[in-house]
């Protein structure tokens, strides 16, 4: 299963949309940096396995939607070890 990492705001780029178009059953999505603007619940997101770096969300004053799990760096590392491959959608 793939871990997709998105770091761009859904309002400035197509990274989140492009990522979700290549999302397979069982994949996980992690929103980091400006990607956390996609975690507030205004964008369509997968129903399961959606994570968001809590520190990045807090820094930007973003409240996570109910189906998004806020995580710390340690959990990020474990997500990377649990998934293969890891795909960055960074532009």
């Amino acid at each position: 299963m793939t871990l997709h990492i998105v770091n761009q705001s859904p309002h400035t780029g197509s990274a989140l949309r492009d990522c979700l178009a290549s999302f397979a059953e069982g994949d996980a999505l992690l929103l980091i940096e400006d990607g956390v603007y996609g975690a507030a619940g205004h964008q369509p997101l997968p129903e399961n396995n959606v994570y968001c770096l809590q520190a990045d969300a807090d820094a930007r004053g973003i409240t996570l939607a109910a189906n998004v799990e806020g995580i710390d760096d340690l959990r990020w590392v474990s997500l990377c070890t649990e998934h293969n491959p890891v795909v960055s959608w960074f532009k």
Partner: protein
Amino acid sequence: MSQPKSILALCRHAPYGNALAREGLEAVLASAAMDQIPDVLFINDGVFQLLEQDPKAIGEKNLRRNLQALPMFGVETLYVCHRSLKERGLAPEQLNIAGAELKLLEDTGTFIGNFDQVLSF
């Protein structure tokens, strides 16, 4: 010896607007020159890289030379996202890279999930 890892280069940016398209192809050629031949998937705006181009007037080098070098370096199959083509009003017949076979993919998610490592450009 462990098995070599399977590598996918995900090319998702149009040529000339920024350096990513060129850098992606250069990374693929460099990997192939070191006997680590990646698969290449053109997806999203990356499919625009496969059109005929004439960037002389904007002072850019034509990316097609890099594309045409791919088969010589052992990258003989180029994967193309069919949905990305349709979204951009492109027909598969508009894409032609000499010496390379273009394979249209419907399910890019499952395809990507089969690789050990994915490089994004």
